[in-house]
């Protein structure tokens, strides 16, 4: 039932050791799982639960709150086309329709070869560059239909080297040298009051006095 590769399992243990409570590592562990397979499988969640001392239900409950975790297989390239207001005014919906036509799938679907998934998304915070989309969360701005076809073609032919496969994320893999951690302790083990609270108290006293 184990899911992680030996190497990823090691990373998982390293990630867990960064936190005072194992459960705090859930989100980075889910990223790690997604990176391995492109999506988060049930088996992955079972192993994460074991590693983080919790239940699979809690892992899934926590993970499924976040759009970027996928709990079903998706394409290696996830194309999120924005159809919110600014993009809509500048042709976002047409862009989406064009993507659907070019790839032969509907928004939410995945191409038979497992290469592409299209999603219809809300504002991705690049309104000034509308219409825009993301491929595996890498922005492509002010796109025309031709740009999109070119992009698809580049990906298909291995020319889109700036876009890693779905699930690839850098941050969870960073190694934090021993001693460089924030040194946060679990709340129940904290003996001293946090500095900011003391600051607040002082300020409050000042107000009262």
């Amino acid at each position, binding site marked *: 039932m184990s899911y992680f590769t030996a190497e990823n399992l090691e990373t998982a243990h390293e990630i867990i050791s960064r936190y005072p409570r194992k459960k705090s590592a859930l989100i980075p562990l889910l990223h790690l799982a997604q990176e391995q397979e492109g999506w988060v499988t*049930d088996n992955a969640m079972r192993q994460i639960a074991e590693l983080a001392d919790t*239940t699979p*239900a*809690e*892992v*899934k*409950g*926590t993970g*499924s*709150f976040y759009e970027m975790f996928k709990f079903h297989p998706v394409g290696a390239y996830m194309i999120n086309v924005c159809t919110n207001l600014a993009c809509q005014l500048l042709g976002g919906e047409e862009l989406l329709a064009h993507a659907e036509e070019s790839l032969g799938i509907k928004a939410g679907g995945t191409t038979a070869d497992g290469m592409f998934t299209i999603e219809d998304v809300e504002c991705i915070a690049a309104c000034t560059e509308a219409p825009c989309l993301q491929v595996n969360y890498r922005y492509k701005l002010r796109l025309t239909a031709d740009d999109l076809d070119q992009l698809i073609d580049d990906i298909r032919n291995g020319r889109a080297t700036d876009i890693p496969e779905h699930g690839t994320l850098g941050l969870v893999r960073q190694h934090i040298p021993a001693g460089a951690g924030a040194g946060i302790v679990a709340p129940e083990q904290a003996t001293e009051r946090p500095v900011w609270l003391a600051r607040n108290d002082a300020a409050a006293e000042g107000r009262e006095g």
Partner: protein
Amino acid sequence: MTAVENEKSTVTVTLNGVEIEANPGELLIDAAERHGTYIPRFCYHSRMKSVGMCRMCLVEVDSGRGPALQPSCMIPVGEGMTVDTESEATKKAQDGVLEFLLINHPLDCPVCDKGGECPLQDQTVAFGPGESRFVEEKRHYEKPIPISDTVYLDRERCILCDRCTRFADDVAGDTLIHFMDRGNSTQVNTFPDEPFASYFSGNTVQICPVGALTAKPYRFKARPWDLEETISTAWIDSVGSRVTIQSSRNQVLRLLGVDADSVNWGWLSDKERFGFEALNSEDRLTAPMVRVDGRLEATGWAPALAAATDALRDVDPARIGVIGGARLTNESQYAWTKLAKGVLGTDNVDAQLGDGLPVEAVLGLPRATINQACTPGRTVILVGPDPKEDLGALFLRLRHAVVNDGTTLIELTPTRTGLSTIAAHSLHPKPGEVDLLAAALVDAVSGDAHDAAGVPANAIAAAAASISGPVTVVLGRASVAESAAVTVDAAIALSQLEGVGFLSALRRGNVHGALDMGMAPGLLPGRVPLRAGCDAFDQVPTEVGMDTIAMLEAAASGDLDVLVLLGSDPLSDVPDADLAERGLAGAGTVIAVEMLPNASTLTHADLVLPAAAPTEVDGTFTNLEGRVSVAEQKVTPPGTARADWMIAAELALRLGADLGVESPESIRAEIAVVSPVHAKLTETALADGRVEGVLISGSSIEAPTASGSTTPANDAYSLRLVAARRMYDNGTMLQASASSAGLAASVKVTLNPTDFEKLGLDAGTVVKVISGRGELMAPLAADFGVPAGSAMIPTNAPGSNVNTLIDASASVTDVRVERA
């Protein structure tokens, strides 16, 4: 601040124009309710953390910065706060919140089980808009999905109040249901293929404020307005949880937990909640039965009682034995003690089946209550069974105390328990050596830490150092494969700790009532020894009689003419199956007084008298603290089954004696006179203690004395047996409950994985387990919670009974595990 203000211990709040005094830190919603103003709510539950999920409790609060709408379940009262729960703004907020909550609600009240008792329905009528402006398509989900064998979830009805999920996570510690997805798709659900298999799942059904969660035993059975109800006491285990019993047309349909502050806080284990199904079972004994040509055949009461009287008349009292009685009410127990000890003159009476503790360990040590054990800042030492498996509601109370109130928990148990993950220290002694570990812990408290029972000195020292405040020892038999003497010796050692109190963990329903009513050798009603005598009895035996094990031994060698099984099943429960079989076979006449036929009755009873169930009689029960609470008759017994006290009175009459008992009240009156400790148990006290019960304290029983027994070392090839109970087993009552019967896991042998290598075996392999007494076959399972060198087999599990391996006269049981 003036001195006067400094001393003020309450907080003054103006509630709807009236000044009220609230407790510091109290939530506004609670303070208002205590002063007669009910603020509507869905998510808030006084026994769980507030989460502010539903916003139904919004009220206008002015803390000096002008009025603003605030959730009253999230804000503590503040000095000078002004609160308006009836203002226009408040009403508009309530109206709006309800309209929002109803947007996706299917409004299928006519086909919903909650209809008539639904907070959503009620509050919509009281505070809601009356009309919806929502014309769009509602959210749709598959209607109800089973999330466990017992509980169904209708996600369309759910208002996402987080009560069930909070209960599962915070209260029970079984995070098997969770909010999944987000936004409009948020739903409660389980992980695929991992059902909500919690021993406490029924509580979520009770606290769900809508009809989203329903339980199989009650689905579509009744409407709330058809139900009659009474407050009573759960009988499944010895916690004595307070319940409401609801019935319709003379049938019990549902049990709900009642929030008794000193006992169960409204929670129940599923076994307590759904155990009533057994009482409605078709297998209930409805007429007396007599064995003719080896078969049990129905007969009438007159011939049955005549046969029983014939068997009992003119028999040497020393050759009569009574085993069982923990199922009975206090009143019935008193009547049976009076019959056995006062009329028949035998002291061979034992309500425990060799799986309990001697009287001295229960009644002779200073006792503690659940609330004392759970007082913040104290320490609980567990020397006994896993409360999660045996005493569900107590487990929830202890868990709350440890998680939320800083209670320190130290476990001295043979294996990991349901509390181990939150325990400060889990020390697992070698089976049979918990007495040595307890003594070492006491030594470590006074600075002398040393290794004991396979536990290293530093672990013992750390545990000793963590003890803070007065100690409560939860005391019971962790494993029936080790003798009671070991547990008693551990208790004696721990009794040296300062301010120690003991909370009994004997599990059977009214076993503590049985002890208080004298159903043990050497004991009379009122926690007094035989020599104290009893004015209400014609005679009192002079010699201390036999306990269950001794009775069975006597019966096996032909020295028992009559054996009465008072709601007991020695074949399944006595931790020595071989002895039980020989005893039952060797006894003269076996008379069983039973609700349901069990293994012992079916194979060995010559005469069976049908008894009424706890919901069919009036009376009282005594819980593990010594708390007496009312059990009230809700329905009539099936067929001609009778209350146990009536059967005792009838037998006495036929034997030419008069027990002088006419009703449960008359028996209670006699108990209050006879028993020095029950003097305060008046009808007024019982009525006042309708919810909390009446705590009986004091005892004339002396403290136990050390057994001086030592446990032999085991050889390198054997493992030491741990036989512990599981919540669901092959017990007669459980197997007669339709929705629980299938929950008992079949027998397996659990070892520490490190022992697998030594034995050259793997998990899943079917093995033969051999002891000096017998053998059984079962598959192997792995668990690091079982210490290396031990083998854990649950008692009375479907498949084979671990009791076949146990020799009641040995202090421990060593077994060999071989490939089958």
